[in-house]
C-alpha cells in the first residue's frame, strides 16, 4: 500500500513535488581511487553511448577535477542514469541545475 492517500488531494505536496521534478538535473560522477580508468571509459560508452573521445574526456574530468557532469536533463531520465551508474559501482550524485 502506498503511504500517501491518493484519494485526498494535497495541493501543497503536489506543488512541492512538481517543483522538485521541474527544471534540469545533472548526473554527476565523483572520483574514486579504485575503479580503473579503462573501466570508467567503458561504463560511459556503455551507459551513454559516448564515443571513445567523449568517454575519455569525462573520465579525465572525474580523475583530475574529482567530478564530471555526464548528463543533464529531465529528472526522470537523470534518475535512470544515476541508478544505472550505481549498478556499475560508480559514485554518482544528482544535482539540480538551479543549485549552480
Amino acid at each position, binding site marked *: 500500500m502506498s*503511504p500517501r492517500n491518493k484519494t485526498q488531494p494535497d495541493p501543497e505536496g503536489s506543488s512541492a513535488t512538481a517543483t522538485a521534478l521541474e527544471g534540469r538535473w545533472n548526473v554527476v560522477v565523483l572520483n574514486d*581511487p579504485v575503479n*580503473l580508468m*579503462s*573501466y570508467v571509459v567503458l561504463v560511459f560508452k556503455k551507459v551513454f553511448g559516448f564515443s571513445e573521445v567523449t568517454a575519455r574526456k569525462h573520465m579525465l574530468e572525474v580523475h583530475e577535477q574529482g567530478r564530471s557532469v555526464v548528463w543533464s536533463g529531465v529528472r526522470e531520465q537523470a*534518475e535512470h542514469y544515476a541508478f544505472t551508474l550505481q*549498478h556499475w*559501482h560508480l*559514485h554518482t550524485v*544528482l544535482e539540480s541545475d538551479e543549485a549552480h
Partner: protein
Amino acid sequence: MKRIEVKLSLPVVAPLLDVIKEVADSLSTDLAASNTLAEVETELRDTWRDELLLSQNEEVKQLLALFDTEFFATGVVAFDGSNAEPIVRACAAIRLRLRERFLLDLKEDVLESGDIELEALDEPGRRAFMCYLFLATIQELIIQHLDSSILEN
C-alpha cells in the same frame, strides 16, 4: 561468440580466493558503492538499493563460480559475452570493498598509482592488495578483449 581463456597460477591465486570470498560475503547486505543519492525520495532509494543489492549479489556469485573444481584441476578461467559484463562489475564491487576494509590507510594518489611498497603493509593488507591487483587484471583482460561484447549487449 568471442571467448578468452586465461591460465592462472594456482599457487598464486588459490590463497587469494579465501580473501575474495570473505569480502564477497561482506557485500551480501551492503552496496559496494554506497548509495549517495540524497536527492532521490526515500521510498525510491530503498527500492533501488534492493534491486542493486540483488544484482550485486548475483554478479559476485558469478565471479566466485569461476573458481570451481575445474579451475582447481586446470587453472583455467574463461570469459565470453555472457559473463564479461557481470564479472567486470563484480570485480569493481569487490575491489571497492577491499579498499574500504583493508587499504584505507593508503592515500588515494598512492592507490591510484599502484606504487605500493608491499613490505610496508601488514599480512592482511598485503593479501588484500594482491587480490585488489588480481581483480584489476581480470577487469583489464575483459575490457581489452571483450569490450565490444559488453557494448553490443
